[in-house]
Structure formats: C-alpha cells, structure tokens
C-alpha cells in the first residue's frame, strides 16, 4: 500500500495543484510539496528493515494475462533514488516558486512537474519490468511537456521533440528488450529476473535483450551517440533542467543499469558495450563542455560527461566500480543541481546565459558566487568536496581494470584526460562568470542577489556537497551501503569512505587533472582557436533537417501511390483478384468436368453470339455514348432471354424491367454529360487494359466452364420439398424470397430504400445546365409531349396497374411477385412523366414517395414481426385457404403482406429516384398544346 501510495501521491498532487494556481505561487508551491513530504514520512519507517538488507515488495494484480502487475519494491537502490527524487524535487519546487514569473502558467508547471516526479518514483519503485516500462515512457512524455513549457519558443519545441524522439524511441527498444527477458525468464517480476542471471546470460537471446535494454538506458542517460538531445533540452525552464538533468530523468538510464546489474552484468558483451560507450561519452562531453559559451550548455555537456563516467563505472563490472558509480550518482546530483540553480539565478538576474557577456559577477552577487564556486569546485573534483571522493574511486577503478596489453593504459589515460577537461570547464565556469573583468552589455544591469529564499535550495545542496566531502562515512555511508548491497545482490565489497587514502596513483591522477585543467584553462584561447577550426555541428538543425527530409520523402512516396486516380485503384483491385485466383485456376486439372458438355441449339448459339458481340461492341463503342447505351440494352435483353431459356421466368421478368429503368436512368444522366468520351489513354495503356480485361475474362470463362461441368448437389431439394407445404406457394423462387430467405429480401428492399433516399439527398438543390441541343448541334424539338403518346399513355396506367396487380397476386405460385409488380407500376407512372411532364404528373400523384418507401418497409417489418405474437421467430410466415361462394377457394398468406411491402418499396424507391432526376431539368418545355394540360 505504502509504495503504491508514494507513487500515486504526486499524480493526485498534479490534479490538485492547479486548483491552487489562483491562490498564488506560494500556495501552489506548498500544495505541490505535500506529496513529497508525505512520501518521505511514509518511507522513513522502512529504513530499519532496509538497513538490515531487507526488501519491501507490494503486489496487486492488473493484467495477469500479460504478466503485468502493480508490484512495487523498496530496497536500498530504489530508496537511494527515491530520496534523490523526493528531496531534490522539494528543493526544485521551492526554487521554482521564485524562478517563475507571476504571469506564467504556474498551475500547469507544477502539475507536470508532479506528474514527472510520480513517473520517476514509479520507475525506481516498480518491481515489475513492464510496470517500470510504463513509468519509463511516462517520464519521456512528461519531460516532453516540461521541456516545451515555453512552447512559444521554437527551440523549446524542437528540443522537446528531439528529447521525446530519442528517449521515447529508446523506450520502445527497452520494451523489446524487456519482452525478450520476459520470454527467457518467464516472468517480468524483478525477483524472478534478478534470480535468473545465469539463465539469461546463457540464453541465445541474451545479446539481443542486452543490446535493446542498453539502448533504452543509453538514450535516456544521454550516452554517446544519443547524447545530443540533452544539451538541447536546456530550452526548458531552469528548475526543469536542474531536476531532469541532474538528479532524475537522465539518471533513469543509470538506475536501469544498476537495477538489472545482477541479471545482465558480468559478461563480455556488457563490459565492452557499457564501458566503451561510457568512455566515449565521458570524453566527448567533457571536451565539448569547455567550448560552450552558454552557461547551461556547459553544464549540460558536463552532465553528459559525468553520466558517461557513471556508465563507464558500471561497465567495468567490478563491485567497487559499481559502488563508486552509485556514489557519483549522489554527488553529481547534488553539485549539478546546485550549479543549474545558480545558473538559473544568474540568467534570472542578468537576463542572459552567454559567458562572453557575463563577467565579474562577484561584485554584484558574492553570496551566489560563493555557492556556485563551491559547487563548481566539487564538479572539478577538488578535495574536501564530494565530487573529489567519487572521482578518486573512479580513478582507482580505472587503474584496477586490467585489460590485456596496451589496452590497460587506456582507461586511466581517458579518466585523467576527462578529469583535466572537467577541471578546465569548471575553472571557466568560475572565472569567466564571476571574474574576468566587467560585464558586457547585460540585458539587465546591474544584476542583484536573488530573493533570499531562492538561494536556500542552493545552499542546502552545497552544504551537502561539503558535508559529504568532509565526512563521507557518517553522512552518506549508510545510504550508499544499503544501495550498493541492493545493487550487488547482497555481497558488498569492503571499501572505506575517507577524505584521503594516502598518497597513491589515484591521487596523482587527481593532481594531474587539477593542474592540467588549470593550465588548459589558462591557455584556453589556443584551444578555442583550435576548436573554432571545426565548424560547430548543430544536432538540432541536423535532426530537424532529417525530419523534414523524411516528411517530404514520405509525402512524395505517399502521393505517388495514393495518387487519387480511380483508374489506378481499380487496376490494383482487379489485379489483386486475378493474382489470387489465377493460382487455383491453373490447378484445374481438366477444364471440362465429369459431366461433359451438352449440345447447343441454333437459337441459343445465335443468342450467345449476339450477346458477346454486343458486349464487346459496348466496350469498343463506349466513346459514342448513346450507341453504347443501345448496345447495352441489347445485352440486357439477351441476358433476360438467357434467364428464360434456362428456366428462370422470374429472373427474366426482373431483369427486363430493371434493365429498362436502368437505361432510362442512364439516359437522364447522359443528358447533362458529354455525348462523346474523348480519347485520353495512350495506345499502350489501352492495350494493357485490354490484356488485363482478357485475362479476367479468360479466368471467369475457365471457372464457369469447370463449374458448369462438375456434378453437385445442393440444399435446394429441401426448398422444392417444403415450398408448398411449408411456404404455401408453388413458385419456389418466390417462396425463397419471401419466406425461406425473407431476411435477405428485407435487406434488399432496405438497400433500395436507402439508395433512393441517398439519391434524393444527392440531387437536392444541385444545379446542372443542360446542353441547348443534342451532340450534333441540333436544338431540341419544341414539342415536348406528342399528342399520340399522351393519348396512349392514359389507358396504359389503369391497364398497367391491373397487370401489376395480377403479377403481384400470382407471384406466390407462378412467376411474378412484389418486385416485378412494383416495377411495372413504377414504369406505368414513368410513362406518364415522360408523356405529360413533371408538373402535370406530379400534380396528379397525391402521395410523397418517401412515405411510400417508409410504408413499404413498415409493411415488410410488420409482416415479419407478426409472428412474435405467436411465439415464432421473425419472418415466420403462415397461410390458409378460404372458400367463398362464387369466388371459390383461394389462399391467404402472410407472406403476401411482406411481398406488399416489397411492392410499395420498389414503387417508392424507383419513382423517387427518377423524379429526383427529372426535377433537375429546367421546366422549359413549351406546353403549347390545346386541351388536356
């Protein structure tokens, strides 16, 4: 409970803090410190147990299926880091209270700071690797927001994005690494993982797991070559830099290495990867730091260098090195945090961070200067300060490291060289800022000491540096000890924390570093000149350039594929269909199946030929659109005949009526379109399309032929058997439509209804200008409604209604049914529209077609739902026979009501579509005719 509370509190605080934003900066600062205070109090009682090498683990189930549990662990290592996070966090809160300006969004700042703190605590306290990863990425996100706090600044945005890209990306690598470890160990619980060192290191996947985990650690801890994000993160407000880049975020990677040290360390791979990365980082950071004119830039690169140092120590793999690493974690956190704060104060008071302008601040802010100089001395590794101690241990370890042959000299040399640079840039920090003549045109002049309370955090930290530096054993000893024992799984080497270990090689190296550093700084101009020869590489610019280039490439590539060309998409679709189907088709052993071919009669053959001819003709003549339309209707007619020829009267009728309405629709559309299609495709393009079309056609031919000549039996015998006794109809097709598969029909008429509604919406207030005359330039005839046509149209209506009724009523037993009947009625009305015009006909049609559609659907649904009342499922039909005098015996079937729904829907939908189209035409028809109108 305690631990989850410790992690949870900051998040709660993040929610609560902004509420105090109105009450002023002090109020919110106090509110924000509450979680940390509670957390410290909560952790304190466990000190005893940890001191005895105990561990506190608390676990709650979360997602067992993926091995993710809310389990937290408090041991020496996590305690050490938790304390750093909490204590320095408190100081930062206090510092930020004075650093931030009243008008700034303090609420947001503290909220995000607390979120970040919670995430960090999560990392160090979680006992489940997946859970740790959750918090890990959470720190990436929150730091992204913190770094970009001043998001109106371009550099802040870029720095933040770069940090997110690197650390977030590293997190993804870490994810993979953790998953691999999980696979190897079979659990993500830290206890299991730490216990399975041998298993892991023996496993074939170990190199991958190690590399991925280290990628995570290195990116987070700004190790070479991923170090570049850190200096650019300096765009953050200084409290953020002081927190993230001294004590917390960048230490997460270090923590991870420490945490998994027992499980992963001790192998060749570990040694080379970690130590060499650390070495490189150590040197590069130290070297670059010297040449930075930006205060925070200098500190940032020194941070990189110190992180490299710690990494190198972990890489060495010796127990003492690990202890030294942990020790330096503490020391670096203290002096670097104070230095950042000091830099912030200077920035705050002078308005700039450029050391070429900032000079001689000693006169203006001696108090701050003293603090900063002490901290800087500690950074340089001056004796009696904590930095000195861990650096001594570092030198000692670099010597203890016995590499084969000349390699043995490399670590000590590197260490010394880095030490020299460290002294040099520390010296610069001290001399160039506080002395070195008079300030040059400071934005704020003269600078003053900052507010009293702004210095308190610095004082506390500097005090810590001194205390640790002078009385290491009593001040930090115990904590370091339990932390080390936790890291080294219990067996801590014997080491003594003393100010002096007598005159020995490490001490000599320190002296070399010290005086070498001073010398170097005194000769700095040469080095500056030397450095100036190489042009500064701006990683941010490169990063941005790369990002932009990538975007542009991606955009070009995308536009190349997603070209917005329907022809391309259709082609891809057709090709895909062919591609998948062609393999199986080629597997067809014989094209003609077991049943063989049956003889063909002359009329059928003729029909087939004409059909093919007209189909090809339609494709060939598609440029002259009207002609294509005529050929298309021939095809339609022949398809209907084919249905009739092969025993499908219902299909023949449906096809016929649908085809005519379709042609009319196409003509009505063609009226507003060009009558001719221009030639656009090149010959090669057309030949390509023809080839594809032929392949598709050939495929269909082969499939059909094979299928038609194969014997088969289907479930249809059931329909034939039950159509009459179960469905009460002898037209099996109709019974299937209204009964066996009535649900299909319901969907089908719904489609029809929706299409009509859609068409209606599409054509609502659409403006189309019709051509003044036909394609040949003849103006349209004046006579819109020829008298003969009008006269013949009149009797057609009642006659057609009667026929459609007839077709409708017999549908259940003989060819026909609601759909065909509906189309006949619709066509009869269509004839009225054609013969006498929109206005005339609309004036005589008293119903809205919308309502007809609705009514139709309603009938169908009601007919289907009626069966609920009798406990039968939806669409269960019933029928009976009635005998009346004169009339005789006749059938009444509920399916007929359903079919009536179909009938009405078809009428409504068809006419709504046609009338919506008709409405487009300007009613310019000259109605010059006598009588009638």
């Amino acid at each position, binding site marked *: 409970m305690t631990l989850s509370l410790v992690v949870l509190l900051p998040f709660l605080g993040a929610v609560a803090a902004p509420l105090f934003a109105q009450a002023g900066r002090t109020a919110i600062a106090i509110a924000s410190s509450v979680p940390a205070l509670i957390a410290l109090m909560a952790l304190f009682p466990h000190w005893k147990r940890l001191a005895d090498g105990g561990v506190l683990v608390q676990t709650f189930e979360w997602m067992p299926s993926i091995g993710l549990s809310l389990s937290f662990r408090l041991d020496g290592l996590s305690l050490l880091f938790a304390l750093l996070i909490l204590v320095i966090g408190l100081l930062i809160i206090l510092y930020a209270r004075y650093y931030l300006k009243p008008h700034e969004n303090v609420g947001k700042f503290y909220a995000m700071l607390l979120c970040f703190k919670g995430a960090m605590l999560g990392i160090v306290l979680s006992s489940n690797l997946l859970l740790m990863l959750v918090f890990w990425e959470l720190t990436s996100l929150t730091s992204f927001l913190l770094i970009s706090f001043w998001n109106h600044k371009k550099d802040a945005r870029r720095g933040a994005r770069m940090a997110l890209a690197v650390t977030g990306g590293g997190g993804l690598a870490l994810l993979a690494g953790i998953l691999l470890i999980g696979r190897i160990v079979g659990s993500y619980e830290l206890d299991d993982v730490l216990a399975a060192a041998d298993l892991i290191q023996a496993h074939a996947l170990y190199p991958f797991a190690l590399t991925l985990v280290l990628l995570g650690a290195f990116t987070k801890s700004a190790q070479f070559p991923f170090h570049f994000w850190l200096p650019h993160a300096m765009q953050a407000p200084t409290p953020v830099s002081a927190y993230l880049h001294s004590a917390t975020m960048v230490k997460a990677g270090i923590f991870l290495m420490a945490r998994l040290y027992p499980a992963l360390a001790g192998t060749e791979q570990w040694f080379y990867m970690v130590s060499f990365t650390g070495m490189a980082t150590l040197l590069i950071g130290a070297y670059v730091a010297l040449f930075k004119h930006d205060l925070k830039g200098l500190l940032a690169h020194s941070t990189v260098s110190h992180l490299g140092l710690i990494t190198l120590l972990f890489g060495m793999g010796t127990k003492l090195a690990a202890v030294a690493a942990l020790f330096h974690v503490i020391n670096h956190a203290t002096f670097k945090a104070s230095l950042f704060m000091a830099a912030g104060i200077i920035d705050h008071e002078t308005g700039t961070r450029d050391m070429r302008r900032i000079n001689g601040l000693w006169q203006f802010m001696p108090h701050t200067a003293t603090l900063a100089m002490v901290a800087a001395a500690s950074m340089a590794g001056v004796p009696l300060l904590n930095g000195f101690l861990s650096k001594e241990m570092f030198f000692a370890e670099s010597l203890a490291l016995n590499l084969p042959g000349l390699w043995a000299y490399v670590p000590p040399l590197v260490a010394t060289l880095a030490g020299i640079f460290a002294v040099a840039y520390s010296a610069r920090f001290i001399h160039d800022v506080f002395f070195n003549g008079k300030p040059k045109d400071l934005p704020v002049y003269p600078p003053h000491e900052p507010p009293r309370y702004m210095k308190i955090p610095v004082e506390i930290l500097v005090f810590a540096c001194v205390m640790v530096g002078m009385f290491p054993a009593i001040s930090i000893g115990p904590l370091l000890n339990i932390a080390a024992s936790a890291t080294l799984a219990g067996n801590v080497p014997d080491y003594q924390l003393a100010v002096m270990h007598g005159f020995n090689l490490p001490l000599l190296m320190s002296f070399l570093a010290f005086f070498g550093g001073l010398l170097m700084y005194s000769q700095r101009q040469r080095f500056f000149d030397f450095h100036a020869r190489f042009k500064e590489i701006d990683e941010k610019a490169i990063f941005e350039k790369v990002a932009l280039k990538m975007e542009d490439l991606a955009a070009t590539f995308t536009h190349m594929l997603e070209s917005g060309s329907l022809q391309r998409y259709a082609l891809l679709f057709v090709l895909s269909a062919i591609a998948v189907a062609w393999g199986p088709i080629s597997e067809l052993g014989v094209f003609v199946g077991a049943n063989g071919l049956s003889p063909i009669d002359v009329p059928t053959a003729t029909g087939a030929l004409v059909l093919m001819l007209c189909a090809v003709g339609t494709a060939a003549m598609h440029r002259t659109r009207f002609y294509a339309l005529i050929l298309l209707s021939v095809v339609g007619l022949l398809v209907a005949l084919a249905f009739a020829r092969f*025993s499908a009267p219902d299909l023949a009728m449906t096809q016929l009526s649908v085809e005519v309405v379709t042609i009319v629709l196409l003509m009505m559309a063609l009226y507003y379109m060009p009558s001719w*299609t221009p030639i656009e495709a090149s010959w090669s393009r057309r030949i390509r*399309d023809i080839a*594809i079309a032929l392949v598709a056609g050939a495929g*269909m031919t082969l499939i059909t032929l094979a299928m*038609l000549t194969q014997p088969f039996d289907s479930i249809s015998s059931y329909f034939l058997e039950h159509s009459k006794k179960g469905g009460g109809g002898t037209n099996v097709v109709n019974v299937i439509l209204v009964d066996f598969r009535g649900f*299909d029909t319901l969907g089908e008429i719904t489609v029809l209804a929706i299409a009509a509604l859609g068409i209606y919406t599409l054509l609502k207030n659409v403006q189309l200008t019709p051509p003044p005359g036909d394609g040949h330039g003849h103006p349209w005839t004046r006579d819109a409604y020829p008298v003969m046509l009008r006269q013949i149209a009149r009797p057609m209506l009642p006659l057609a209604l009667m026929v459609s009724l007839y077709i409708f009523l017999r549908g259940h037993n003989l060819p026909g049914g609601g759909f065909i009947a509906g189309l006949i009625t619709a066509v009869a009305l269509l004839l009225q529209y054609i013969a006498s015009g929109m206005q005339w006909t609309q004036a005589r049609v008293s119903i809205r077609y919308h309502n007809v559609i609705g009514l139709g659907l309603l009938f169908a649904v009601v007919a289907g739902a009626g069966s609920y009342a009798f406990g039968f499922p939806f669409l269960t039909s019933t029928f009976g026979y009635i005998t009346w005098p004169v009339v005789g015996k006749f059938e009444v079937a509920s399916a007929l009501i359903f079919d009536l729904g179909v009938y009405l829907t078809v009428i409504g939908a068809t006419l709504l579509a046609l009338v919506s189209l008709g409405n487009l035409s300007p009613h310019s028809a000259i109605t010059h005719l006598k009588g009638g109108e």
Partner: protein
Amino acid sequence: MELAFALTIGTLTASGVYLLLRARTFPVIVGLTLLSYGVNLFLFSTGRLVTGGQPILGSTDNYSDPLPQALVLTAIVIGFAMTAFVVVLALRKQADHHDDHVDGRESSARLRLEDEEEDGR
C-alpha cells in the same frame, strides 16, 4: 451449351473490366453494369443449366435449382439500387466539377495546395 455460356460470361467480364478501367464516369458505370450482368449470369449458373426446369411446382419433372435464382434476383435488385446511386453520383461529379473525369482535374492542384508549407516546422 456450357462452353457458350462460359464464353458469354467471360466476354461480359472482359468488357466490363475494360470499361471499369476508363477515365470517365459514364463508361465506368456502363462497365459496372456489364460486369454485374456477367456476375448475375454466373451466380445463376451455379445451379447448372437446365432447359424447361422452371422451379414452379408441378410445371416440370426436373426442376432447376431455385436457390441461385433467388440469390440472383436479390443481386439484380441490389445492383439496380447501386447503379442508380452511382449514376447520380456521376451527375454530382459533373455538377460539381463541370467534367465527368473520374478523378477530376483539380486533384493535382489540391495536392500542390497541400504541399505548400511555410518555413521549417
């Protein structure tokens, strides 16, 4: 018989596919119609070809398979609805862009507009 039928379906498919790949709405729609004719015939023929076997009880002694017929009927109706809709959509294209090109002339212009971006993100 089967061969003629298969060839017919193949021809309809080929013609339809060719028109489907054209650049103007009208041919494309015609192509889709041809394609649907071919598909309907195919689906219908999955019950195999029977002469004089209309599935009206009592009308014959070898009934053809009624199920594909019912399916095709549904398919025809749905195809009708879809064709009607796409025809109208083509009209909208004509109305909105004053041409009947399936991609519209301005598509390239739009891309350019998207591309124009002011200095460094």
